[in-house]
Protein backbone atom coordinates (compact mmCIF):
# COMPACT_ATOMS: atom_id res chain seq x y z
CA UNK A 1 0.00 0.00 0.00
CA UNK A 2 1.25 3.44 -0.84
CA UNK A 3 1.62 6.08 1.83
CA UNK A 4 -1.17 8.14 0.25
CA UNK A 5 -3.53 5.19 0.28
CA UNK A 6 -2.80 4.69 3.95
CA UNK A 7 -3.54 8.34 4.73
CA UNK A 8 -6.78 8.24 2.74
CA UNK A 9 -7.87 5.13 4.57
CA UNK A 10 -7.11 6.74 7.93
CA UNK A 11 -9.05 9.86 7.00
CA UNK A 12 -11.96 7.74 5.85
CA UNK A 13 -12.02 5.87 9.16
CA UNK A 14 -11.95 9.14 11.09
CA UNK A 15 -14.77 10.47 8.92
CA UNK A 16 -16.80 7.31 9.55
CA UNK A 17 -16.21 7.70 13.29
CA UNK A 18 -17.35 11.30 13.20
CA UNK A 19 -20.43 10.32 11.16
CA UNK A 20 -21.40 7.65 13.65
CA UNK A 21 -20.86 10.05 16.53
CA UNK A 22 -23.09 12.56 14.76
CA UNK A 23 -25.80 9.95 14.19
CA UNK A 24 -25.53 8.91 17.81
CA UNK A 25 -25.85 12.55 18.91
CA UNK A 26 -28.94 12.96 16.72
CA UNK A 27 -30.49 9.83 18.16
CA UNK A 28 -29.81 11.10 21.68
CA UNK A 29 -31.30 14.45 20.77
CA UNK A 30 -34.42 12.74 19.41
CA UNK A 31 -34.66 10.66 22.57
CA UNK A 32 -34.26 13.72 24.80
CA UNK A 33 -36.90 15.61 22.81
CA UNK A 34 -39.31 12.73 23.29
CA UNK A 35 -38.50 12.61 26.99
CA UNK A 36 -39.09 16.31 27.21
CA UNK A 37 -42.38 16.06 25.37
CA UNK A 38 -43.56 13.28 27.65
CA UNK A 39 -42.45 15.19 30.71
CA UNK A 40 -44.44 18.14 29.43
CA UNK A 41 -47.55 16.01 28.89
CA UNK A 42 -47.11 14.61 32.37
CA UNK A 43 -46.81 18.12 33.74
CA UNK A 44 -50.02 19.14 31.99
CA UNK A 45 -51.84 16.16 33.46
CA UNK A 46 -50.35 16.91 36.82
CA UNK A 47 -51.46 20.55 36.59
CA UNK A 48 -54.97 19.47 35.65
CA UNK A 49 -54.99 17.08 38.59
CA UNK A 50 -53.72 19.79 40.84
CA UNK A 51 -56.44 22.15 39.67
CA UNK A 52 -59.03 19.47 40.35
CA UNK A 53 -57.63 18.90 43.82
CA UNK A 54 -57.56 22.63 44.53
CA UNK A 55 -61.16 22.94 43.36
CA UNK A 56 -62.16 19.99 45.52
CA UNK A 57 -60.43 21.49 48.53
CA UNK A 58 -62.00 24.87 47.89
CA UNK A 59 -65.43 23.26 47.76
CA UNK A 60 -64.73 21.32 50.93
CA UNK A 61 -63.68 24.52 52.66
CA UNK A 62 -66.75 26.31 51.35
CA UNK A 63 -68.95 23.54 52.70
CA UNK A 64 -67.19 23.65 56.04
CA UNK A 65 -67.64 27.41 56.16
CA UNK A 66 -71.31 27.10 55.26
CA UNK A 67 -71.79 24.49 57.95
CA UNK A 68 -70.06 26.67 60.51
CA UNK A 69 -72.17 29.63 59.48
CA UNK A 70 -75.34 27.57 59.64
CA UNK A 71 -74.37 26.39 63.11
CA UNK A 72 -73.78 29.97 64.22
CA UNK A 73 -77.09 31.00 62.72
CA UNK A 74 -78.85 28.13 64.46
CA UNK A 75 -77.27 29.17 67.73
CA UNK A 76 -78.27 32.78 67.23
CA UNK A 77 -81.80 31.79 66.24
CA UNK A 78 -82.09 29.57 69.24
CA UNK A 79 -80.92 32.32 71.57
CA UNK A 80 -83.31 34.79 69.98
CA UNK A 81 -86.26 32.39 70.22
CA UNK A 82 -85.59 31.33 73.76
CA UNK A 83 -85.09 34.92 74.90
CA UNK A 84 -88.28 35.90 73.21
CA UNK A 85 -90.18 33.05 74.85
CA UNK A 86 -88.83 34.00 78.27
CA UNK A 87 -90.06 37.53 77.94
CA UNK A 88 -93.73 36.59 77.91
CA UNK A 89 -93.87 34.85 81.32
CA UNK A 90 -91.43 37.42 82.66
CA UNK A 91 -93.88 40.09 81.64
CA UNK A 92 -96.37 38.36 83.91
CA UNK A 93 -93.95 38.15 86.82
CA UNK A 94 -92.87 41.80 86.67
CA UNK A 95 -96.39 43.07 86.01
CA UNK A 96 -97.88 41.07 88.86
CA UNK A 97 -95.08 42.08 91.23
CA UNK A 98 -95.88 45.71 90.47
CA UNK A 99 -99.58 45.21 90.98
CA UNK A 100 -98.87 43.31 94.19
CA UNK A 101 -96.69 46.15 95.49
CA UNK A 102 -99.62 48.52 95.13
CA UNK A 103 -101.80 46.38 97.40
CA UNK A 104 -101.81 46.64 101.17
CA UNK A 105 -98.59 44.93 102.25
CA UNK A 106 -96.57 45.10 105.41
CA UNK A 107 -92.92 46.18 105.19
CA UNK A 108 -91.55 42.67 105.03
CA UNK A 109 -93.87 41.67 102.22
CA UNK A 110 -93.15 44.92 100.42
CA UNK A 111 -89.47 44.00 100.62
CA UNK A 112 -90.05 40.57 99.09
CA UNK A 113 -92.04 42.07 96.26
CA UNK A 114 -89.24 44.55 95.66
CA UNK A 115 -86.77 41.68 95.34
CA UNK A 116 -89.01 39.94 92.81
CA UNK A 117 -89.28 43.19 90.86
CA UNK A 118 -85.52 43.82 90.89
CA UNK A 119 -84.64 40.28 89.88
CA UNK A 120 -87.27 40.34 87.18
CA UNK A 121 -85.90 43.58 85.77
CA UNK A 122 -82.32 42.30 85.84
CA UNK A 123 -83.39 39.19 83.99
CA UNK A 124 -85.31 41.30 81.54
CA UNK A 125 -82.33 43.52 80.77
CA UNK A 126 -80.17 40.44 80.30
CA UNK A 127 -82.68 39.01 77.86
CA UNK A 128 -82.95 42.31 76.03
CA UNK A 129 -79.17 42.41 75.77
CA UNK A 130 -79.03 38.87 74.43
CA UNK A 131 -81.70 39.71 71.89
CA UNK A 132 -79.75 42.79 70.87
CA UNK A 133 -76.52 40.89 70.55
CA UNK A 134 -78.03 38.00 68.56
CA UNK A 135 -79.74 40.56 66.41
CA UNK A 136 -76.48 42.31 65.62
CA UNK A 137 -74.54 39.08 65.20
CA UNK A 138 -77.03 37.69 62.73
CA UNK A 139 -76.70 40.93 60.76
CA UNK A 140 -80.36 41.74 61.21
CA UNK A 141 -79.97 45.04 62.95
CA UNK A 142 -80.74 48.00 60.76
CA UNK A 143 -79.64 51.40 61.86
CA UNK A 144 -82.00 54.29 61.36
CA UNK A 145 -80.82 57.28 59.36
CA UNK A 146 -82.66 60.27 60.72
CA UNK A 147 -81.66 63.81 61.48
CA UNK A 148 -80.62 63.88 65.11
CA UNK A 149 -79.01 66.43 67.36
CA UNK A 150 -76.01 64.94 69.10
CA UNK A 151 -76.17 67.53 71.85
CA UNK A 152 -79.84 66.80 72.54
CA UNK A 153 -79.30 63.06 72.57
CA UNK A 154 -76.30 63.34 74.89
CA UNK A 155 -78.20 65.63 77.21
CA UNK A 156 -81.05 63.18 77.36
CA UNK A 157 -78.59 60.41 78.32
CA UNK A 158 -77.22 62.59 81.11
CA UNK A 159 -80.75 63.23 82.30
CA UNK A 160 -81.54 59.53 82.42
CA UNK A 161 -78.49 58.83 84.57
CA UNK A 162 -78.72 61.89 86.74
CA UNK A 163 -80.64 60.04 89.45
CA UNK A 164 -78.14 57.18 89.61
CA UNK A 165 -75.25 59.66 89.87
CA UNK A 166 -76.88 61.75 92.54
CA UNK A 167 -77.63 58.63 94.56
CA UNK A 168 -73.92 57.79 94.50
CA UNK A 169 -72.87 61.38 95.06
CA UNK A 170 -70.99 61.49 91.79
CA UNK A 171 -70.86 64.67 89.74
CA UNK A 172 -72.06 64.24 86.18
CA UNK A 173 -70.40 66.76 83.85
CA UNK A 174 -70.42 67.50 80.18
CA UNK A 175 -67.77 68.96 77.89
CA UNK A 176 -69.11 69.63 74.43
CA UNK A 177 -66.72 71.16 71.91
CA UNK A 178 -67.99 74.15 69.98
CA UNK A 179 -67.41 72.46 66.64
CA UNK A 180 -70.17 69.88 66.94
CA UNK A 181 -72.62 70.18 64.03
CA UNK A 182 -76.27 70.85 64.92
CA UNK A 183 -77.76 67.89 63.08
CA UNK A 184 -76.47 64.74 61.53
CA UNK A 185 -77.97 61.54 60.21
CA UNK A 186 -77.97 58.71 62.68
CA UNK A 187 -79.84 56.32 64.91
CA UNK A 188 -80.79 58.15 68.08
CA UNK A 189 -81.94 55.05 69.96
CA UNK A 190 -78.75 53.14 69.33
CA UNK A 191 -76.54 56.15 69.97
CA UNK A 192 -78.25 56.70 73.29
CA UNK A 193 -77.92 53.03 74.08
CA UNK A 194 -74.14 53.28 73.71
CA UNK A 195 -73.77 56.53 75.63
CA UNK A 196 -76.05 55.53 78.51
CA UNK A 197 -74.29 52.21 78.76
CA UNK A 198 -70.87 53.86 79.03
CA UNK A 199 -72.19 56.48 81.46
CA UNK A 200 -73.94 53.91 83.62
CA UNK A 201 -70.78 51.76 83.77
CA UNK A 202 -68.68 54.78 84.66
CA UNK A 203 -71.02 55.78 87.47
CA UNK A 204 -71.19 52.20 88.72
CA UNK A 205 -67.43 51.92 89.05
CA UNK A 206 -66.80 55.38 90.47
CA UNK A 207 -67.01 55.93 94.20
CA UNK A 208 -65.71 59.49 94.45
CA UNK A 209 -65.39 62.33 92.01
CA UNK A 210 -67.04 62.75 88.68
CA UNK A 211 -68.00 61.30 85.36
CA UNK A 212 -67.59 63.48 82.29
CA UNK A 213 -69.25 63.11 78.92
CA UNK A 214 -67.22 64.83 76.18
CA UNK A 215 -68.09 65.24 72.55
CA UNK A 216 -65.94 66.74 69.84
CA UNK A 217 -65.78 66.76 66.09
CA UNK A 218 -62.38 65.45 65.04
CA UNK A 219 -62.95 65.99 61.34
CA UNK A 220 -65.55 67.97 59.44
CA UNK A 221 -66.04 68.14 55.70
CA UNK A 222 -68.85 69.69 53.70
CA UNK A 223 -70.91 66.55 53.91
CA UNK A 224 -69.52 64.43 56.74
CA UNK A 225 -68.37 64.63 60.29
CA UNK A 226 -66.24 62.36 62.43
CA UNK A 227 -67.18 62.59 66.08
CA UNK A 228 -65.36 61.40 69.15
CA UNK A 229 -67.49 60.80 72.18
CA UNK A 230 -65.77 59.98 75.46
CA UNK A 231 -66.86 59.08 78.95
CA UNK A 232 -64.18 59.63 81.60
CA UNK A 233 -64.43 58.75 85.23
CA UNK A 234 -62.36 59.00 88.37
CA UNK A 235 -63.22 55.43 89.31
CA UNK A 236 -61.43 52.22 90.21
CA UNK A 237 -59.83 51.76 86.78
CA UNK A 238 -59.08 48.57 84.89
CA UNK A 239 -55.86 46.56 85.00
CA UNK A 240 -54.04 46.63 81.62
CA UNK A 241 -54.18 42.85 81.19
CA UNK A 242 -57.96 42.86 81.53
CA UNK A 243 -58.58 45.51 78.90
CA UNK A 244 -58.53 43.18 75.87
CA UNK A 245 -61.40 41.12 77.24
CA UNK A 246 -63.66 44.06 77.96
CA UNK A 247 -65.50 44.14 74.66
CA UNK A 248 -66.09 40.40 74.44
CA UNK A 249 -69.48 39.01 75.53
CA UNK A 250 -69.77 37.83 79.14
CA UNK A 251 -66.34 39.06 80.06
CA UNK A 252 -66.74 41.32 83.00
CA UNK A 253 -63.33 41.87 84.44
CA UNK A 254 -63.94 39.03 86.87
CA UNK A 255 -66.90 37.33 88.43
CA UNK A 256 -66.45 39.20 91.68
CA UNK A 257 -67.12 42.37 89.70
CA UNK A 258 -70.46 40.96 88.63
CA UNK A 259 -71.38 40.18 92.19
CA UNK A 260 -70.38 43.59 93.47
CA UNK A 261 -71.51 45.83 90.65
CA UNK A 262 -74.18 43.81 88.84
CA UNK A 263 -74.72 44.03 85.10
CA UNK A 264 -74.98 41.37 82.47
CA UNK A 265 -71.50 41.58 80.99
CA UNK A 266 -73.04 42.13 77.59
CA UNK A 267 -73.29 45.91 77.58
CA UNK A 268 -69.81 46.67 76.28
CA UNK A 269 -69.96 43.85 73.75
CA UNK A 270 -73.15 45.38 72.38
CA UNK A 271 -71.65 48.88 72.43
CA UNK A 272 -68.62 47.64 70.49
CA UNK A 273 -70.81 45.95 67.88
CA UNK A 274 -73.07 48.97 67.53
CA UNK A 275 -70.11 51.30 67.15
CA UNK A 276 -68.72 49.01 64.47
CA UNK A 277 -72.05 49.05 62.68
CA UNK A 278 -71.89 52.83 62.75
CA UNK A 279 -68.50 52.64 61.09
CA UNK A 280 -66.55 53.72 64.13
CA UNK A 281 -64.18 52.32 66.72
CA UNK A 282 -64.46 51.89 70.43
CA UNK A 283 -61.53 52.03 72.81
CA UNK A 284 -60.49 52.50 76.36
CA UNK A 285 -57.66 54.03 78.33
CA UNK A 286 -57.36 53.28 81.99
CA UNK A 287 -55.13 53.62 84.98
CA UNK A 288 -56.07 51.45 87.95
CA UNK A 289 -56.97 53.63 90.91
CA UNK A 290 -57.04 56.81 88.82
CA UNK A 291 -59.87 56.32 86.38
CA UNK A 292 -60.98 55.17 82.99
CA UNK A 293 -61.90 56.79 79.70
CA UNK A 294 -64.06 54.96 77.22
CA UNK A 295 -64.32 56.59 73.84
CA UNK A 296 -65.81 55.85 70.49
CA UNK A 297 -65.76 57.46 67.11
CA UNK A 298 -68.41 57.56 64.47
CA UNK A 299 -68.68 59.12 61.08
CA UNK A 300 -72.00 60.46 59.92
CA UNK A 301 -73.48 62.48 57.14
CA UNK A 302 -74.41 66.03 58.07
CA UNK A 303 -78.14 66.69 58.02
CA UNK A 304 -78.97 69.94 56.31
CA UNK A 305 -82.29 70.43 57.99
CA UNK A 306 -84.07 68.82 60.81
CA UNK A 307 -86.58 66.36 59.54
CA UNK A 308 -89.80 67.08 61.34
CA UNK A 309 -90.15 64.62 64.17
CA UNK A 310 -93.23 62.58 63.92
CA UNK A 311 -95.84 64.13 66.15
CA UNK A 312 -98.11 61.80 67.93
CA UNK A 313 -101.58 61.29 66.73
CA UNK A 314 -103.70 63.40 68.99
CA UNK A 315 -107.15 62.49 70.03
CA UNK A 316 -109.26 65.41 71.10
CA UNK A 317 -111.54 64.09 73.71
CA UNK A 318 -111.90 66.44 76.57
CA UNK A 319 -113.48 65.28 79.77
CA UNK A 320 -114.59 62.07 78.24
CA UNK A 321 -113.59 58.57 79.30
CA UNK A 322 -111.62 56.79 76.57
CA UNK A 323 -113.06 53.50 75.39
CA UNK A 324 -110.23 51.00 75.28
CA UNK A 325 -110.02 47.63 73.54
CA UNK A 326 -107.39 45.11 74.48
CA UNK A 327 -106.73 42.51 71.76
CA UNK A 328 -104.37 39.99 73.30
CA UNK A 329 -104.43 36.20 73.49
CA UNK A 330 -102.29 35.77 76.59
CA UNK A 331 -104.35 35.81 79.78
CA UNK A 332 -101.62 37.13 82.00
CA UNK A 333 -100.81 39.94 79.60
CA UNK A 334 -104.51 40.82 79.43
CA UNK A 335 -104.64 41.00 83.23
CA UNK A 336 -101.48 43.07 83.60
CA UNK A 337 -102.61 45.61 81.02
CA UNK A 338 -106.13 45.75 82.35
CA UNK A 339 -105.02 46.34 85.94
CA UNK A 340 -102.44 48.91 84.85
CA UNK A 341 -105.05 50.80 82.86
CA UNK A 342 -107.50 50.71 85.75
CA UNK A 343 -104.81 52.14 88.00
CA UNK A 344 -104.47 55.03 85.58
CA UNK A 345 -108.19 55.65 85.86
CA UNK A 346 -109.50 54.00 82.73
CA UNK A 347 -112.61 51.93 83.27
CA UNK A 348 -114.14 51.40 79.84
CA UNK A 349 -112.07 48.38 78.93
CA UNK A 350 -113.09 45.58 76.57
CA UNK A 351 -110.95 42.49 76.06
CA UNK A 352 -110.86 40.13 73.06
CA UNK A 353 -108.67 37.07 72.53
CA UNK A 354 -107.78 37.36 68.87
CA UNK A 355 -107.77 39.58 65.82
CA UNK A 356 -110.97 38.05 64.44
CA UNK A 357 -113.00 39.01 67.51
CA UNK A 358 -111.37 42.42 67.43
CA UNK A 359 -112.44 43.07 63.83
CA UNK A 360 -115.95 41.69 64.42
CA UNK A 361 -116.53 44.11 67.28
CA UNK A 362 -116.12 46.99 64.85
CA UNK A 363 -119.30 45.89 63.03
CA UNK A 364 -121.43 47.50 65.68
CA UNK A 365 -119.11 49.44 67.92
CA UNK A 366 -116.00 51.61 67.89
CA UNK A 367 -113.17 52.36 70.31
CA UNK A 368 -110.85 55.29 70.97
CA UNK A 369 -107.76 53.21 71.66
CA UNK A 370 -106.81 49.65 70.81
CA UNK A 371 -103.89 47.79 72.41
CA UNK A 372 -103.15 45.30 69.69
CA UNK A 373 -100.94 42.27 70.26
CA UNK A 374 -98.94 41.45 67.14
CA UNK A 375 -99.11 37.69 67.41
CA UNK A 376 -102.63 36.35 67.83
CA UNK A 377 -104.48 33.31 66.55
CA UNK A 378 -106.78 33.45 63.50
CA UNK A 379 -106.03 37.06 62.52
CA UNK A 380 -102.83 38.63 63.81
CA UNK A 381 -102.46 42.21 64.99
CA UNK A 382 -101.07 43.51 61.71
CA UNK A 383 -103.92 42.12 59.60
CA UNK A 384 -106.53 43.19 62.12
CA UNK A 385 -105.11 46.72 61.97
CA UNK A 386 -105.16 46.72 58.18
CA UNK A 387 -108.80 45.59 58.18
CA UNK A 388 -109.81 48.22 60.70
CA UNK A 389 -107.97 50.92 58.77
CA UNK A 390 -109.89 49.89 55.64
CA UNK A 391 -113.25 50.27 57.37
CA UNK A 392 -115.28 53.37 56.74
CA UNK A 393 -115.45 54.54 60.33
CA UNK A 394 -116.63 57.87 61.62
CA UNK A 395 -113.41 58.11 63.62
CA UNK A 396 -110.45 55.77 63.37
CA UNK A 397 -109.11 54.39 66.66
CA UNK A 398 -105.61 55.09 67.98
CA UNK A 399 -103.89 51.72 67.66
CA UNK A 400 -100.95 50.86 69.91
CA UNK A 401 -99.02 47.71 69.02
CA UNK A 402 -98.06 45.32 71.79
CA UNK A 403 -95.14 43.08 71.10
CA UNK A 404 -92.49 41.09 72.85
CA UNK A 405 -89.85 41.79 70.24
CA UNK A 406 -88.80 45.38 70.26
CA UNK A 407 -87.01 45.09 66.95
CA UNK A 408 -86.68 47.75 64.35
CA UNK A 409 -88.51 45.74 61.67
CA UNK A 410 -91.47 45.23 63.96
CA UNK A 411 -91.78 48.97 64.42
CA UNK A 412 -91.64 49.31 60.67
CA UNK A 413 -94.21 46.57 60.10
CA UNK A 414 -96.54 48.16 62.64
CA UNK A 415 -96.20 51.56 61.02
CA UNK A 416 -96.84 50.10 57.60
CA UNK A 417 -99.93 48.25 58.79
CA UNK A 418 -101.27 51.58 60.05
CA UNK A 419 -100.59 51.45 63.75
CA UNK A 420 -99.94 54.70 65.57
CA UNK A 421 -97.67 53.68 68.37
CA UNK A 422 -95.69 50.86 69.77
CA UNK A 423 -95.40 49.37 73.24
CA UNK A 424 -92.85 46.73 74.08
CA UNK A 425 -93.67 43.92 76.46
CA UNK A 426 -93.14 43.40 79.34
CA UNK A 427 -95.21 46.45 79.94
CA UNK A 428 -93.63 49.33 81.76
CA UNK A 429 -96.26 51.23 83.72
CA UNK A 430 -94.38 54.51 83.41
CA UNK A 431 -94.15 54.26 79.64
CA UNK A 432 -97.79 53.24 79.38
CA UNK A 433 -98.71 56.34 81.34
CA UNK A 434 -96.56 58.54 79.12
CA UNK A 435 -98.11 57.12 75.97
CA UNK A 436 -101.64 57.68 77.19
CA UNK A 437 -100.81 61.16 78.48
CA UNK A 438 -99.90 62.17 74.94
CA UNK A 439 -103.49 61.46 74.00
CA UNK A 440 -105.28 64.56 75.14
CA UNK A 441 -108.56 64.13 76.94
Amino acid at each position, binding site marked *: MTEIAVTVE*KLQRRLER*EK*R*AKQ*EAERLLEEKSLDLYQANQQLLLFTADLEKIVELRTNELKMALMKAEAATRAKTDFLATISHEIRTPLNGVIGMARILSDTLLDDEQQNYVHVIDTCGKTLLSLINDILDLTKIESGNLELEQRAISIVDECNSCLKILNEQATKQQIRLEKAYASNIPAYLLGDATRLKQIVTNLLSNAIKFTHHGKVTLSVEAVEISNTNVALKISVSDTGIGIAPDKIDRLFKPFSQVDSSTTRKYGGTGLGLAICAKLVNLMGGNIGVESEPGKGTTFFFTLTAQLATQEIATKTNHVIQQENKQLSILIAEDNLINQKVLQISLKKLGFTQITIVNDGMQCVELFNHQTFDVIFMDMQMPRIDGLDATRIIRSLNLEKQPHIIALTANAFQEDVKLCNEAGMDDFLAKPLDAKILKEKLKLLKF
Partner: protein
Amino acid sequence: MKGMVFTEFFSLVETAFGEDMLDDIIDDANLPNGGAYTAVGTYNHMELVAMVIALSTRSEIPVPDLVKTFGTYLFGRFVALYPNFFDNVTDSFVFLSGIENIIHAEVLKLYPDANLPKFDVQIEGDELVMIYHSNRHFADLAEGLIIGASQHFDEDFKIVKADLDENSTEFRIVRQ
Protein backbone atom coordinates in the same frame (compact mmCIF):
# COMPACT_ATOMS: atom_id res chain seq x y z
CA MET B 1 -19.59 7.48 32.26
CA LYS B 2 -20.62 10.70 30.55
CA GLY B 3 -19.48 11.09 26.96
CA MET B 4 -17.86 14.45 27.70
CA VAL B 5 -15.16 12.61 29.69
CA PHE B 6 -14.43 10.52 26.58
CA THR B 7 -14.41 13.47 24.17
CA GLU B 8 -12.16 15.43 26.51
CA PHE B 9 -9.85 12.39 26.72
CA PHE B 10 -9.77 12.26 22.89
CA SER B 11 -8.79 15.90 22.58
CA LEU B 12 -6.04 15.44 25.19
CA VAL B 13 -4.63 12.41 23.30
CA GLU B 14 -4.90 14.29 19.99
CA THR B 15 -3.00 17.32 21.25
CA ALA B 16 -0.40 15.43 23.29
CA PHE B 17 0.26 12.38 21.07
CA GLY B 18 -1.32 13.18 17.70
CA GLU B 19 -4.28 11.85 15.75
CA ASP B 20 -2.50 8.67 14.71
CA MET B 21 -2.03 7.66 18.32
CA LEU B 22 -5.76 8.21 18.89
CA ASP B 23 -6.61 5.98 15.91
CA ASP B 24 -4.24 3.35 17.20
CA ILE B 25 -5.53 3.15 20.77
CA ILE B 26 -9.13 3.11 19.48
CA ASP B 27 -8.16 0.08 17.42
CA ASP B 28 -6.24 -1.51 20.29
CA ALA B 29 -9.06 -1.06 22.77
CA ASN B 30 -11.48 -2.89 20.48
CA LEU B 31 -14.36 -0.55 21.34
CA PRO B 32 -17.98 -1.65 20.74
CA ASN B 33 -18.90 1.50 18.80
CA GLY B 34 -15.61 1.92 17.03
CA GLY B 35 -14.79 4.98 19.16
CA ALA B 36 -17.70 7.16 18.09
CA TYR B 37 -18.42 9.16 21.25
CA THR B 38 -20.64 12.21 21.73
CA ALA B 39 -20.41 14.52 24.71
CA VAL B 40 -24.05 14.02 25.62
CA GLY B 41 -24.03 10.20 25.47
CA THR B 42 -23.34 7.76 28.29
CA TYR B 43 -20.86 4.92 27.95
CA ASN B 44 -19.26 2.16 29.97
CA HIS B 45 -16.31 3.57 31.94
CA MET B 46 -14.33 0.38 31.17
CA GLU B 47 -14.00 1.62 27.56
CA LEU B 48 -12.03 4.58 28.87
CA VAL B 49 -9.93 2.25 31.00
CA ALA B 50 -9.19 0.08 27.94
CA MET B 51 -8.01 3.12 25.95
CA VAL B 52 -5.82 4.35 28.81
CA ILE B 53 -4.18 0.91 29.05
CA ALA B 54 -3.59 0.92 25.27
CA LEU B 55 -2.08 4.41 25.47
CA SER B 56 0.17 3.32 28.32
CA THR B 57 1.43 0.33 26.31
CA ARG B 58 2.17 2.43 23.25
CA SER B 59 3.61 5.47 25.06
CA GLU B 60 5.34 3.48 27.82
CA ILE B 61 3.97 5.94 30.39
CA PRO B 62 2.45 4.21 33.49
CA VAL B 63 -1.38 4.20 33.62
CA PRO B 64 -1.60 6.19 36.90
CA ASP B 65 0.49 9.01 35.45
CA LEU B 66 -1.69 9.16 32.36
CA VAL B 67 -4.93 9.25 34.38
CA LYS B 68 -3.52 11.89 36.72
CA THR B 69 -2.48 14.06 33.77
CA PHE B 70 -5.92 13.61 32.28
CA GLY B 71 -7.47 14.72 35.60
CA THR B 72 -5.43 17.92 35.64
CA TYR B 73 -6.31 18.59 32.00
CA LEU B 74 -10.03 17.83 32.71
CA PHE B 75 -10.09 20.34 35.55
CA GLY B 76 -8.97 23.05 33.15
CA ARG B 77 -11.78 22.06 30.83
CA PHE B 78 -14.34 22.25 33.70
CA VAL B 79 -13.15 25.78 34.43
CA ALA B 80 -13.73 26.69 30.78
CA LEU B 81 -17.05 24.83 30.43
CA TYR B 82 -18.67 25.63 33.81
CA PRO B 83 -17.38 29.05 34.88
CA ASN B 84 -20.41 29.49 37.18
CA PHE B 85 -19.02 26.96 39.63
CA PHE B 86 -15.98 29.14 40.17
CA ASP B 87 -17.76 32.47 40.71
CA ASN B 88 -17.15 33.89 44.15
CA VAL B 89 -14.97 30.95 45.22
CA THR B 90 -11.55 32.11 46.37
CA ASP B 91 -10.49 29.37 48.76
CA SER B 92 -9.34 26.04 47.27
CA PHE B 93 -10.23 24.06 50.41
CA VAL B 94 -13.71 25.55 50.47
CA PHE B 95 -14.04 24.67 46.78
CA LEU B 96 -12.84 21.08 47.21
CA SER B 97 -15.02 20.54 50.29
CA GLY B 98 -18.04 21.41 48.13
CA ILE B 99 -17.37 18.97 45.26
CA GLU B 100 -19.87 16.35 46.35
CA ASN B 101 -22.58 18.54 47.88
CA ILE B 102 -22.46 21.47 45.50
CA ILE B 103 -20.77 20.66 42.17
CA HIS B 104 -21.51 16.99 41.70
CA ALA B 105 -25.00 17.65 43.08
CA GLU B 106 -25.55 20.12 40.23
CA VAL B 107 -24.03 17.67 37.75
CA LEU B 108 -26.54 15.08 38.88
CA LYS B 109 -29.41 17.47 38.20
CA LEU B 110 -28.14 18.01 34.67
CA TYR B 111 -27.36 14.32 34.03
CA PRO B 112 -29.48 12.11 36.26
CA ASP B 113 -27.64 9.04 34.89
CA ALA B 114 -24.19 10.31 35.96
CA ASN B 115 -22.15 8.00 38.17
CA LEU B 116 -20.37 10.21 40.65
CA PRO B 117 -18.00 9.33 43.47
CA LYS B 118 -18.65 10.04 47.16
CA PHE B 119 -16.32 12.17 49.23
CA ASP B 120 -15.90 12.41 52.99
CA VAL B 121 -14.34 15.77 53.63
CA GLN B 122 -12.84 17.23 56.78
CA ILE B 123 -10.63 20.21 57.43
CA GLU B 124 -8.14 19.49 60.25
CA GLY B 125 -6.20 22.67 60.97
CA ASP B 126 -4.41 23.52 57.74
CA GLU B 127 -4.93 20.06 56.36
CA LEU B 128 -7.83 19.01 54.12
CA VAL B 129 -8.71 15.33 54.30
CA MET B 130 -10.75 13.99 51.36
CA ILE B 131 -11.71 10.34 51.29
CA TYR B 132 -12.76 9.21 47.82
CA HIS B 133 -15.29 6.38 47.54
CA SER B 134 -16.10 4.79 44.17
CA ASN B 135 -16.12 1.31 42.71
CA ARG B 136 -14.87 2.76 39.40
CA HIS B 137 -11.36 3.21 40.83
CA PHE B 138 -10.60 6.67 39.48
CA ALA B 139 -8.57 7.78 42.50
CA ASP B 140 -5.80 8.85 40.12
CA LEU B 141 -8.29 10.94 38.21
CA ALA B 142 -9.33 12.53 41.52
CA GLU B 143 -5.69 13.29 42.32
CA GLY B 144 -5.22 14.89 38.91
CA LEU B 145 -8.36 16.97 39.45
CA ILE B 146 -7.09 18.06 42.87
CA ILE B 147 -3.79 19.11 41.30
CA GLY B 148 -5.80 20.97 38.66
CA ALA B 149 -7.62 22.79 41.45
CA SER B 150 -4.33 23.78 43.11
CA GLN B 151 -3.12 25.25 39.83
CA HIS B 152 -6.37 27.07 39.28
CA PHE B 153 -6.17 28.70 42.72
CA ASP B 154 -2.49 29.34 42.17
CA GLU B 155 -1.45 27.25 45.14
CA ASP B 156 1.02 24.45 45.78
CA PHE B 157 -0.40 21.32 47.41
CA LYS B 158 1.44 18.56 49.19
CA ILE B 159 -0.82 15.53 48.61
CA VAL B 160 -0.40 12.32 50.60
CA LYS B 161 -2.44 9.53 49.08
CA ALA B 162 -3.34 6.25 50.83
CA ASP B 163 -5.72 3.47 49.75
CA LEU B 164 -8.01 2.61 52.68
CA ASP B 165 -9.73 -0.34 51.03
CA GLU B 166 -10.60 -1.50 47.53
CA ASN B 167 -13.08 1.31 46.92
CA SER B 168 -11.74 4.11 49.15
CA THR B 169 -8.70 6.33 48.89
CA GLU B 170 -7.66 9.01 51.36
CA PHE B 171 -6.07 12.30 50.25
CA ARG B 172 -4.34 14.43 52.89
CA ILE B 173 -3.78 17.85 51.36
CA VAL B 174 -1.60 20.59 52.86
CA ARG B 175 -1.01 23.98 51.28
CA GLN B 176 2.72 24.72 50.91
